[in-house]
Structure formats: structure tokens, C-alpha cells
């Protein structure tokens, strides 16, 4: 039981980290960025490329090297996010929302098969693997890498939440999502803020990619697809566009999945998870922390 909870939370924190970027981007330009999961994949591959080009890394250095590589990967995926926004999404400002959604799917294909063309379709084993002690906490096996990864994820999320809620850039992000023209009249450089949002969201996904690569040990060009869907789901459960909600949604989804496969078996897990989601949204149409629809008539 404790094992179940722990496993659920651990997977959930990955979902949460990716859901954050999803939710941020959604929040600001109302775009379901289907390419977001692929940024995560890109992050993992950048990490892979960096680590392999370092040559053999002694195990003792691996954690340090990993953190450096993670930073690098965040920088590059952040840049990639910015570039994608610039080339594929910005020209469609003011176009119907669904048009941008389709471009996002196009970007997703391009990233997936672009990486497949460069790195080959084969899955790769990550050169550095996080290994560490295992503790027994209330009957659950918890490993050191898991704890480290969860701490990193939590720290990133807390920072981000502060940034969005308390800084004026954060306020600007929220205002753009509500009314872009009015935001312009406040003197907000909408382009710059959107760029920054993409950078942060993509960098978080990149970090998650490297972390997943190092923890699970395998990366492949389609690895972003399922987790992208999961993150989308998590973001919605939490109340899309809401940063705290995305974190909560990720954790909840992780737990729901863990219980689903425990109770109904692996093959029915997703049916259970989506079933819970549908039921939940039927009762609470704006997600856990979704803002009340306050449009007045």
C-alpha cells in the first residue's frame, strides 16, 4: 500500500513537471501544445548526445555531470521551444485556436521524425544511470535517486509557482491569457513574455527528459508521445492554465493510475484513469483548481 502510494507519487511528479509546461503555454496562448511531450524527448536526446560526447564518465562523477548536462539540456530545449514558437506558432496569432493546434501536431511529427532521422529509430540506452541506496520507509522501497529527482522536481515547481503568482512577469502572463489586446495597452511586451513562457515551459520538459533518461535508462524518439498525453490529462485534471493545479493534477494522475492497475490489472489501468477523469470533470467541470468561470452576462 505504501509502495503503491509512493510509486504513484513518483510517476506523478514526472507528469507534473511536464504538465507544468503544458499548462503555462496553454495559459498564455490557449494552445494545447501537442509538441510539448516531444520537447521532453528532445531534452533526453540532448542529454544523451552531451553525455556520450563526454566519453566515458566515471561513476563517481556521474551525478555532477548529470546536473551540468541537465542545465545544458534545459538551455537548449528552452531555446528550441522559443524557436518553435517563433516559427510555427507566432505567425498564427489571431488565427483560430484549432489552427495552432494542428501546427503543434505538425511540429510534433517534425520533432519525432527529425530526431529519428538524426539518431535513428532505435531506442538508446542512457550513458549515465542513477543508482543509489534503497531505504525502507513504512514498507515502501524508496531509492535515493527517486528522492533526489522528486526534490529537483519539487524545487522547480515551487520556484515556478512563485514566479507566476508573485512577480509582475507572472502577472503579465496571466493577463495575456485573459485579454491580449488589453495587455498590450498595459505596456506589456506580449512577444517577449510569450517567448519567456515557452522558454521556461520547454526547459522544464527538457529537465524532465534528462531525468527520465538517467533514471529509467532508455530513450527513444516516440517517448514523448504517451507522457505528453498524460501531462495534458494532468494539466486538465488540475484545472488547465493553473500552475498549482498542474502539479496537483500530475500527482493525482500518478496515484489514480497506480490504484487503477492495482485494482483492475494493467490492461484496464487507462480505462480506469480516464473513467475517473471523466467522472470528476462531470462533477467539477473546471478541474481541481480551475478558476471559476466568472464571465458575467
Amino acid at each position: 500500500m505504501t509502495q503503491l502510494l509512493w510509486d504513484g507519487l513518483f510517476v506523478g511528479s514526472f507528469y507534473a513537471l511536464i504538465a507544468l509546461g503544458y499548462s503555462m503555454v496553454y495559459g498564455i496562448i490557449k494552445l494545447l501544445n501537442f509538441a510539448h511531450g516531444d520537447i521532453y524527448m528532445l531534452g533526453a536526446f540532448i542529454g544523451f548526445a552531451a553525455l556520450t560526447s563526454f566519453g566515458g564518465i566515471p561513476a563517481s562523477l556521474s551525478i555532477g555531470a548529470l546536473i551540468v548536462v541537465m542545465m545544458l539540456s534545459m538551455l537548449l530545449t528552452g531555446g528550441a521551444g522559443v524557436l518553435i514558437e517563433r516559427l510555427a506558432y507566432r505567425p498564427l496569432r489571431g488565427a483560430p485556436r484549432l489552427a495552432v493546434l494542428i501546427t503543434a501536431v505538425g511540429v510534433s511529427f517534425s520533432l519525432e521524425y527529425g530526431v529519428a532521422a538524426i539518431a535513428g529509430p532505435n531506442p538508446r540506452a542512457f550513458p549515465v544511470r542513477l543508482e543509489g541506496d534503497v531505504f525502507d520507509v513504512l514498507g515502501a522501497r524508496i531509492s535515493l535517486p527517486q528522492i533526489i529527482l522528486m526534490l529537483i522536481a519539487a524545487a522547480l515547481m515551487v520556484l515556478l509557482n512563485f514566479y507566476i503568482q508573485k512577480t509582475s512577469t507572472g502577472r503579465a502572463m496571466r493577463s495575456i491569457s485573459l485579454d491580449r489586446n488589453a495587455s498590450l495597452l498595459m505596456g506589456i511586451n506580449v512577444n517577449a513574455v510569450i517567448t519567456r513562457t515557452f522558454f521556461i515551459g520547454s526547459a522544464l520538459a527538457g529537465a524532465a527528459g534528462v531525468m527520465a533518461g538517467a533514471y529509467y535508462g532508455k530513450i527513444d524518439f516516440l517517448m514523448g508521445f504517451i507522457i505528453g498525453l498524460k501531462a495534458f490529462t494532468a494539466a486538465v485534471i488540475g484545472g488547465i492554465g493553473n500552475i498549482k493545479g498542474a502539479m496537483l493534477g500530475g500527482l493525482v494522475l500518478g496515484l489514480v493510475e497506480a490504484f487503477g492497475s492495482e485494482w483492475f490489472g494493467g490492461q484496464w489501468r487507462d480505462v480506469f484513469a480516464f473513467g475517473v477523469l471523466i467522472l470528476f470533470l462531470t462533477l467539477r467541470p473546471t478541474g481541481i483548481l480551475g478558476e471559476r468561470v466568472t464571465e458575467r452576462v
Partner: protein
Amino acid sequence: MAMLEFDDVEVFYGKVQALRGMNLRVDEGEIVALLGNNGAGKTTTLSTASALVRAHAGRVAFNGQDVTRAHPWNVVSAGLIHVPEGRRIFSTLTVLENLQLGGYLVKERGLVAKRIERVYELLPLLAERRTQQGGTLSGGEQQMLAIGRGLVAGPKMLMLDEPSMGLAPLIVNQVMQVISEIRDQGTTVLLVEQNARAALKVTDRAYVIDGGATTIEGSARDLMADSRIIDAYLGA
């Protein structure tokens, strides 16, 4: 000195021409009103000045600076603030957050807070509602918030698009007083108003816009006596 100047400005929305050779001049320290029928191009004029809408021809200058091709945020940082038609309140942000956004480009921290306090003094109804979501305010409350938000920016020049819309008579007077007060403190004002009677009381000069160009121009006093104005905007 001219604060805002339009030279033969033309604006199109797709194929629809909204401004046809608009010429306009607002001098520093003036309150100028724009009058005109629905669809005449008043809102478009303001939007062009704040660079929300791009002029296809002609030139717009603010404070001696050509802003025809500027970005809206450049215009705002130059000190030209536009309080838009229809309020455009950020609906899920609180009243306080809305006001803070008004001061987005103000670098000094304390200054924004000080100005917000001042807005609360001028429009006390807002003070009571500082933590309420902007979208749930009543129409008139939203209008006050929109004006307050413009003031927090500390404008050199303020453009107000129908600020009295939806305000109770008492408040209309209050707002007009606020407008003349801020002018007295050195802010230039361009005012689009349908409530011409209230507007002309506080303005120095006014233009009438028709079909995307100015047709009549004159001092408030003259215009209040002009029969064309009386028939169309003031009533007998």
C-alpha cells in the same frame, strides 16, 4: 507643443476603411474631446495612436516621436495610455492585480503602490472591492477600474474611450472631475465621449469625426453654441 498629432492617417480593417485622412492635434496640457456617430472612427483613432491598429498611410506622432510603426508597449512606455472601450478588465484577476498591471512598466516599486492608494481615494468604490475578481464587478465598477488602471501607469497623456459609459450620474460627475484634476497635475487628455454635455464641460477643445475624418473643430465653448453640435450631440 503638440503632444499627439495625426497627419492624413488612413486605416483599413481588411477592405473596410475606417480612417480616411485623419488630421488631429492635441497640445500638451489640453483636454480634447472627440465626438462622432457610431462607426465614425473614434475608437479606431485611439487604437491607432496606441499602436493596436496600424496606419496604412499617414503619420502619427506622440511627444515629437514618430509612433506610426511602434509597438504598443513602446507607446505605453513613452507615456501614452489608452483606456479602451468596453473596459477590458482582466476578469479572473483581482481588482488589485488589475491595478498593478496598470503599472506594469513602472520600475519603482513603491510608486505603483502609492498610485494605487491614490486611485482608491479617487474612486472609493474600488477600495472596497480590492480582492474581488475583476470580472464579477458590476458594469460601472468595471469602468472605474479601467480608468483607475490607466491612472496607475502615470500617463503623460491619457486617452479615454467613453469613460462615462455605464456610470451612474453621480459617478459621471466624479469621473469628469478626476479628469480635470489629472489635467491640472499635468496630464494631457484625449476623450471620446457620447455624453457630450458632460464632456464639453471639462474640455478645452473638441473635434467631430465623421466617416473617418474630422469635420468640425473648435473650442468647447464655441461648439456648445454650434447648432450642428446641439442637434446631434447635446439636444435642445
